[in-house]
């Protein structure tokens, strides 16, 4: 079926020095977009008085190598960044000035993703050294709360559950993992198998009951789950190991969404709940998920609703749908052409 919706480009943000913008992230209010790139810089973008987008802050000397990802704290004034230089850093961003609050050091080499928990209490990082680190934030100090070695290869991306202190990670080992807090400890609660190659990205639904993931295998997979009801199983078989407190299972997949690896995926938390993807075929796509009502026998499904071929002149590395607070569901994308583009649905 042909895509039924359109994405219309409304702005082009240029400024990063070298081709290849790796990542874009909306601030919690949706007023500011942060970007990071191979030029080692972090940039903040916002609309000026004439509603024209402009770069409002640049940080060029924060990291020694490529800045791979950035993540906003829920308060909207702190930004975390991670880099191929092996560190993650915490910044206070006010009035166009970046003030470094902390450097999170511990990974052996490239840090590939950083994510602030919705509660603001934790920052998670992951990287080439196969590990996931959870850092506890307290009074602007960041202590290591856990180091997990569950994955068998690079951990490519990590995201937090929208309401619970639960993490989902994606890896070069083709799997996703669910990481939960267990008292003071953190542990891998579930391994999600279903992709045939590297999982590049993942995103939770607004209520956390679903996850979508994208892969080098060109497919998008939808997973459903959440906290397991442990009590009945424990009563029936007291000797059996405790069931995973959190688990997800594949409920739908959409093959060949892109003709090259899919590098990025995001799931709109408000509005139309659009799923956006960006791939190595230079395209940006929009996907609609149909989720069954609780108790319904109707299966969940994914449907492609829009495709912009040639959205960038190069691989699309990142897509981000503006938070509900912004109100217009604006989609940002970033690519190997060094450009950030903003799209609205029509």
């Amino acid at each position, binding site marked *: 079926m042909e895509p039924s919706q359109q994405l219309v480009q409304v702005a082009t943000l240029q400024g990063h020095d070298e081709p290849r913008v790796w990542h874009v992230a909306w601030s919690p209010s949706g007023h500011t977009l942060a970007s990071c790139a*191979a030029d080692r810089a972090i940039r903040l973008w916002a609309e000026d008085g004439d509603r024209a987008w402009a770069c409002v802050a640049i940080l060029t000397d924060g990291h020694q190598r490529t800045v791979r990802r950035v993540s906003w704290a829920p308060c909207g004034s702190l930004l975390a960044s991670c880099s191929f230089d092996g560190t993650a850093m915490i910044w206070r961003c006010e009035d166009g000035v970046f003030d470094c609050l902390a450097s999170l050091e511990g990974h052996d080499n490239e840090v590939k993703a950083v994510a602030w928990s919705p509660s603001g209490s934790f920052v998670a990082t992951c990287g*080439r050294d196969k590990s996931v680190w959870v850092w506890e934030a307290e009074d602007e100090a960041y202590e290591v709360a856990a180091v997990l070695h569950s994955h068998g290869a690079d951990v*490519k991306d990590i995201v937090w559950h929208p309401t619970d202190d639960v993490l989902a990670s994606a890896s070069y080992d083709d799997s996703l993992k669910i990481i939960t807090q267990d008292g003071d400890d953190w542990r891998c609660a579930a391994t999600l198998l279903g992709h045939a190659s*590297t999982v590049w990205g993942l995103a939770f639904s607004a209520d956390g009951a679903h996850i979508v993931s994208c892969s080098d295998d060109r497919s998008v997979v939808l997973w459903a789950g959440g906290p397991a009801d442990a009590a009945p199983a424990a009563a029936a078989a007291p000797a059996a190991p405790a069931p995973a407190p959190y688990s997800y299972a594949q409920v739908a997949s959409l093959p060949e969404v892109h003709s090259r690896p899919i590098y990025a995926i995001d799931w709109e938390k408000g509005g139309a709940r659009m799923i956006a993807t960006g791939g190595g075929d230079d395209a940006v796509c929009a996907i609609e998920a149909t989720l069954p009502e609780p108790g319904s026998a109707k299966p969940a499904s994914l449907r492609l609703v829009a495709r912009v071929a040639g959205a960038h002149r190069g691989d699309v590395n990142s897509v981000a749908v503006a938070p509900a607070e912004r109100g217009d569901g604006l989609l940002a994308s970033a690519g190997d*052409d060094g450009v950030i583009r903003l799209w609205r649905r029509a």
Partner: protein
Amino acid sequence: MQEGLNASPELHAESDEQRSANECATEADPNARDRIDSLEIFELIRGIKDPEHPHTLEQLNVAQRRLIDVDDEGGRVVVRFTPTIPHCSMATLIGLCLRVKLLRSLPPRLKVDILISPGAHASEEAINKQLNDKERVAAALENDNLLGVVNQCLLNA
């Protein structure tokens, strides 16, 4: 002998393949759309030095024109290469040299896949996956030591 190194590789004659006069005229015409073909790709990579031998990838039969597929319209280039021995410890580095050379030479509209010739290496799948992971390649190229070795292989290529 260290395992994974081929001490006495077989050498092969260099190809004398050339373009016809007609093709050369088109290549020289600034108004003609310059279609990239497998010979053009081969010209770019034939002179790359093997990391462990004073020979080129062409002399070692590691690179061959018949292992190159180009879809100019579709914007896709597939380069396969054949390590001299199936446990060659240099295969990933050779693949990285091929990728860097093409990255520096080809217009960005072309998507490049670098692959081991099917059956030519014991770790074929793992090496293919690594060579085509853009994030790993990007990080590798920010490593000055590794970049130095790659540049050495690309010298005069």
